[in-house]
């Protein structure tokens, strides 16, 4: 169980970093320059998908929050 939890924490951290990077790409690049597998990619469009970036950023933060709580010191139950 502890091993499973540890793997989940690492997954959350990796996912969090990836999502923050994705958010930065959405904010920095216009729709035409996004990788073709990104939702919102559109040939020739100069539109910046700011909202997609915010969504990715918030989910990234949520992943970090999950990792934060699951790596805290274990509390022992009161006797």
């Amino acid at each position, binding site marked *: 169980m502890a091993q499973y939890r540890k793997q989940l924490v690492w997954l959350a951290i990796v996912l969090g970093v990836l999502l923050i990077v994705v958010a930065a790409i959405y904010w920095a690049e216009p729709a035409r320059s996004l990788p073709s597998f990104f939702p919102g990619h559109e040939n020739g469009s100069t539109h910046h998908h700011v*909202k997609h970036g915010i969504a990715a950023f918030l989910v990234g933060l949520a992943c970090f929050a999950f990792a934060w*709580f699951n790596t805290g010191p274990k509390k022992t139950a009161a006797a």
Partner: protein
Amino acid sequence: MGPITYFQGAILGLLQGVTELFPVSSLGHSVILPRLVGWNIHQNDAYFLTFLVATHIATALVLLGFFWRDWWRILKGLGRSLRDREIADPDARLGWLIVVGSIPAGILGLTLESALRRVFASAESAAIFLALNGVLLFGAEMLRRRAPQTSDDDDTRIARTVSWRGAFTVGAAQAIALVPGFSRSGASMGGGLLVGLSHKDAARFAFLLATPIILAAGILKLPELAGPQGNGVRGPAAVGAACAAVTAWISVRFLMRYFETQTLTPFAVYCLCAGTACAIYFAV
């Protein structure tokens, strides 16, 4: 004369304040009413979206003010939990339940709002979805679980009753309000009933859950109100926002008392009847 008159701004503001919090779809009403009274206002017009930003921010600020003691406790709880790396007390848990519930609503809202607004822009579809909103409210009443009877205070009771999965589900249910005719508060209250909250607690949780979403959506679009898109709309928008604030305050006070003893059924009947009547009227 601007695209929205001061009179229209006041009427739409009064309507927005009531319908945003009553489980009857504010967006649906703001699409249907102009069509019913023959106003040349359409929900996809840029100036109307700008107008809605002001009324939404006003409604969110009213909710924030009404529940400010709860928010203060929740924020302190969130801070404590981050510091201790443990969600130990009900205030912290309620705060994180609101965060978990806001994630699906926020993501779906950010990514789908424009597309859904384009597809379901007509008063005809709003009327049909308003009737379906009534069916949804009826369904929530029929399927609701018995709420536990405890002596805890309201927020503690909500924090103890709602699971993480439940909060996520209730939050996701809010996204249905992106379709004009479906109600955000109706969906989240219905979701709250399904996860075992009482009517009063479901309404309280729905309002707490709605506040950051409505406020964030408003703030995100605030530059449109300040920019050239807001030209000719700012005056009526200010009047509309003031009117929305007044009716939102009255509405939240009324609803918090109403749901101590009453159910969603009258709103379900209203949505079903009004939606059906409007759909028939628009069709003939």
